[in-house]
Every structure is written in C-alpha cells, then in structure tokens.
C-alpha cells in the first residue's frame, strides 16, 4: 500500500498573468488543488527519477517528435524538465531558494498551458526515450503524472476527455448500446458460419464457465467487424471454449492516456466484473496496445489487488494453438510481403514481443521486419490518446513520418499491427505519405492462412 510523505507545500500560486487558453480560467484555489494532486501522485520512484535526470539530451533522437521536428520543445528531457522544475520549486530544498539556478518553475497558468501543449501535444507515452535514457528514467511515468494533475483541473484536451466520458457513461468508448452489440455479434456469427460453411461455428455471448473471456476494441464492431470474425474463426478452429460478454467487453482504457486514475480504475474493474460474473479462467485481450498495458499491468495497480485469473493477449493464446498443433496454417494463402508494427504498449511496455512474429512467420509466405523493431521500434504516432486530440493532428501526422519511412523501407504490401489505434494511425499515414499498403490485425493475417476442414 502506498504511503504518503509530508503534505503538499503551501506556496503562493497567485499573481501569474491570466492566459487566453484553458488554464486562464483557473482560480488560485484550482491552482493550489493541482499542486496538491501533483504531490499526491508522487511516489519515491518518481522522486528518484526527478533527482536523476542530468539533462544530457541524448534522448532527443529517440523521440519521433524530435526526429520529425528537431526543436528543443520536442526533446524528452525538455518535456521532462517542465515536470521536474515544478518538483524542484515546491519539494526541493535548493530550488525553493534559488529557482533560476536549479531550473525550478512555479505551477502556474503558464506552466499548465505548457504542460498541455508539450505533455499531451508532443508525447505519445511510447517510452522509447526511457529505453534510451542514459540513466534509465521512466519519462512516460512522469509525463503521465503531470497529465493526472491536468485531469484534476479539467485541462485534458476535449476529444480525449470525451472518449473517457463516453466510456464511463455508456460502458464502452464508442457508446455502443448493449442491444446493438448483441445484434452485431449475431450478424457476425452468421457471416462466420457462411465463411466456414459450418453451422456449428459460433460467436458465443455470456457463456457461463467458458475457459476464455474475449474482449474487443469497440472500434471493431463499429468499423472493423472482420477482425472479430477473424478471431472467431481461429477460436472455432482451435475448438476453444470461449465467450464474449454482452456487457463490459471493452478492452480500451483511455484513462491510461488522459492520466485519470479514477476513470481508469472504473474501466479496469468492469472487465474484472465480467470475468467474475461469467466465471472464466482467462481474460483474453483483443489486439489493442494500450488495452493490454491497462489490463495486464496497470489494472491490478489501479484496483490494488492481484487478479485471480490469467490475463493474456489474444496473440499469446493463438501462438499457443499453433505450437500445440490445435490450428494449422498455410502461409501460401498470404503471398504478399508482410511487415509487422510493434505497438509500444504491447511490446516495449507490455512484454509481448515474439508471439506475433511467430504467428506471422508461419502464416505469411514473406515476412520482413522493420528496422529497428521489437522493443526498440518507433511509435507510429497514434498512441497516448493522440488520435482523439484533433488539435494536435497535424503534429501527429508529421511525427508519423518516421514510421512511414520505416514501412516504406520494408517494401511490404501488408502492415500487420496488433492494435487498433496503430491501425488507424498507419491508415492515415498510408494516405498522407502514399505508402500503398494494407493494414491488418495479426489475427486477420492468421485467419486468412487458416487451414479449415472441408
């Protein structure tokens, strides 16, 4: 259990000039509250990181924002400095007395505006800088901490906040009513039966005691229903005991991006509730990078408890089917050159590194890696909630140039991306940079190579 140290310092926050933007409306009381939240979110780990940064700047070209736009404001150490400066001002003994000397800064309206612009607008929380940091600082964690502070004063960009609000109010981030989800599953089940020519094929709903409870990204029923059919086809071929839930099936958790721990806790708890209600053994997370990080790693932390069930990515489950001979694949059914994008939250921050490769190597005739790859891969630019923050979309596309160049260098026709945020971003990059590729989930590639009876 986390313990708190001394209570937040009471430093004067008033007196800074009002701004036109969102922070301009904040009252001195709200500013004080933001400092209080900042303090409450700090743990010893963050304090250690803050005391470790030497501002060497070697992290600069590990960031896709900096590579696309080489400005100081895009250097991770600069963005981090916006956060560490506040710590030094209120919680560092020397910074209080000699703020200029130590690079300390007040948590005022200007700082909060700078946080919104830099920490929401120039960061995807991909963690590539942390991996390349000379010291090994978890930059992502400190930036998310600052985002949490912005939540407390209502300074989360509107699009991102609205995605969180929709999920909280409607049960999923697309606001799909329960009946519509049930009907979509029924319709897709007919599609699956038609495709397999097998009346026994099912997309089961609310099956008590099924071994696996599968989740979806709500973008799938809305825009990519074939990815649900692909997953269903594989699970059916493996003879798996599985189910969807008619409620609380959303794998996404935009609280991770906005920094809203309370909202994130509610969303994580919903999947736990579905697991307990249906009595399943394993929670299977759909191909969704941040959904994996949220539910596999952060969920237990948000809920402050160990889960009594397994949490796995569908990629891990399907890779096991291939290893165990439960499904057979014919790579010649995917003759195009396929490459793989590594979603940051699944790979660098999630640890699912090899299973997707194992699957693509066995389900496509020609598979080629991007360079660099695995945990060293570049972010596509769509993470950290960027796709929902329209005010930063120009920067997002510009920062995606690095990924576009990586894809083009492979010469691939198909980009497999086990994450729907990444798929959306790569689809936009495809149009913007005229890459001429097709984006698919890994399960779609595997399903196309599936050898079915009859």
């Amino acid at each position: 259990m986390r313990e708190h140290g001394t209570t937040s310092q009471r430093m004067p926050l008033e007196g800074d000039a009002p701004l036109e933007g969102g922070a301009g409306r904040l009252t001195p009381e709200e500013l004080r509250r933001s400092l209080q939240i900042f303090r409450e979110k700090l743990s010893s780990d963050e304090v250690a990181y803050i005391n470790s940064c030497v501002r060497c700047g070697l992290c600069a070209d590990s960031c896709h924002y900096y590579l696309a736009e080489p400005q100081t404001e895009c250097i991770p150490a600069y963005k981090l400095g916006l956060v560490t400066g506040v710590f030094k001002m209120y919680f560092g003994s020397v910074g209080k007395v000699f703020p200029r000397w130590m690079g300390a800064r007040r948590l005022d309206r200007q700082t909060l505006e700078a946080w919104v612009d830099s920490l929401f607008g120039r960061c995807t929380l991909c963690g590539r800088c942390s991996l390349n940091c000379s010291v090994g600082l978890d930059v992502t964690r400190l930036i998310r901490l600052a985002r949490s502070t912005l939540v407390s004063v209502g300074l989360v960009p509107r699009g991102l906040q609205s995605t969180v609000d929709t999920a909280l109010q409607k049960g999923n981030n697309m606001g799909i009513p329960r009946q519509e989800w049930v009907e979509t599953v029924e319709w897709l089940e007919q599609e699956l039966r038609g495709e397999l020519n097998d009346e026994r094929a099912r997309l089961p709903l609310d099956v008590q005691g099924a071994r696996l409870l599968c989740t979806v990204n709500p973008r799938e029923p809305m825009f990519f229903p074939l990815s649900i059919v692909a997953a269903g086809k594989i699970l059916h071929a493996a003879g798996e005991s599985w189910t969807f839930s008619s409620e609380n099936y959303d794998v996404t958790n935009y609280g991770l991006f906005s920094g809203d721990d309370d909202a994130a806790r509610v969303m994580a708890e919903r999947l736990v509730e579905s697991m307990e209600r249906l009595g399943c053994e394993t929670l299977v997370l759909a191909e969704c990078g941040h959904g994996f990080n949220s539910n596999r790693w952060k969920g237990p932390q948000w809920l402050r408890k160990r889960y009594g069930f397994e949490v796995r990515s569908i990629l891990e489950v399907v890779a096991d089917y291939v290893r165990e001979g439960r499904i057979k694949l014919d790579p010649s059914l995917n003759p195009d050159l396929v490459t793989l994008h590594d979603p940051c939250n699944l790979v660098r921050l999630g640890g699912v590194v090899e299973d997707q490769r194992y699957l693509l190597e066995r389900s496509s005739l020609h598979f080629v890696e991007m360079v660099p790859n695995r945990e060293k891969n570049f972010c596509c630019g769509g993470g950290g909630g960027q796709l929902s923050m329209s005010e930063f979309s120009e920067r997002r596309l510009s920062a995606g140039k690095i990924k576009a160049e990586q894809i083009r260098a492979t010469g691939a026709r198909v980009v497999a991306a086990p994450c729907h945020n990444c798929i959306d971003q790569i689809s936009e990059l495809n149009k913007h940079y005229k890459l001429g590729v097709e984006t698919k989930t890994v399960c779609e590639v595997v399903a196309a190579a599936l050898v079915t009876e009859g």
Partner: protein
Amino acid sequence: MTPFLRYAVFLSSGFCLVSLLILLIKTFAFGRRTNYAKHRGSAVRGVLYAFGRGMMPTEKESARRHLFTYSAGVTYHGGILAALVYLVLLLLEYELPAPLLSLFRLLLTLGFVAGFFLLLRRILLPAPRKLSCPDDFAANILVTAFVLLGAVHSQWESGLPLFFLTATAVFLYVPLGKIRHCVFFFYSRVLFGLFYGSRGVLPQEKKQEAA
C-alpha cells in the same frame, strides 16, 4: 594550510554523506507503489541487464548514435572515480607505486579532457544549452576542476591545497545540485531493471537488427 584543508575535506565529505542519506530518506518518505500484476519475466535478470549489457552501445541506440559523447561520459565518470580514490589515498598519505601513479595520471587526464569536452558541448550546442540550467554548468565546472587538479598533482606533486579546496567544494555541492544523481542513478537503474525485467521486455534473447 594543508592540515586545515585536510579537515575541511573530511568535514565536507561527512556533510555530503549525511545529506545524501537524508535525501534518500526523504525520497523513501514519498512511499512506494506495490506492483500487483503477475510478473511475466524476471525482475532480477532485468536489474542485472540494467547494470550490464543494458548500458552498452550495442543495446542503446542513443549511445550508439552519440558514441563520442557516450564515450566521453564514461571516461569522465571514470576520471571522477579515479580522482576520488586519489583523494582518499592522499588523505591516508599512501605512497603510490610508480605504475599505479601513471595509471591515475592517465585516468585523471582523460577524465579532465572528457569533462571539458562535455562542458563545451553543453555551452556550444544549442539543444543541450537550452536544456541546461546554471546548476548543470556549475556542477560540470566544479567536478572537472577537481579532476584537473588531481591530474596536476599526480603529475607535478603541486597544487595540493587547491585540490583539497576543490574537493571540499565538490562535497558541499553534491547534495545540493544535480551531482546528487551519483546516488539516484543507481536507484533509477534498479527501477529500470525491475520494470522491464518483470514485464518480460528485457533482456531480449533474440538479436536485434541494428538501427
């Protein structure tokens, strides 16, 4: 003069150690978060990686891309360590054998050159300059001077009072400014290893294609 400065070095180093200890206690007072998620990999292997292979340019793109700066950083810190050991030996009035003295001369000289290069880099390159605050320059100047004076003494056996004086200043400044990373670096590196190790991200067995 020198006996007085000798005491100053002892006192300042005591102040440094006690202050760093207080800093650590204050840091721990913020509390730690418990990790409730089931591990996927080995936290121990992650920590070993963090202090071993994970520091190498082969593993770290930033080090590979900035090999000269990375090497300067390693050399600088080697020089600082040598200066500290040299200081301790002087305080103990230990007579160094000639080959060992030559080794110290080499390490201290290289350390000074590397430190001076890093200072110039911070002053001359726009990005590092904009990232820096006065504390960064002060820390670099102070420590580089300490290494330089160590090198001078090892070569000509002169300037001992100045070396002791600079050492005193360094010890007094360590807990106040960025040099405190001498302790927090290890803390952060352990956290790095725990994070990537427990999640099964690092160490990766498969060989990566280099960027």
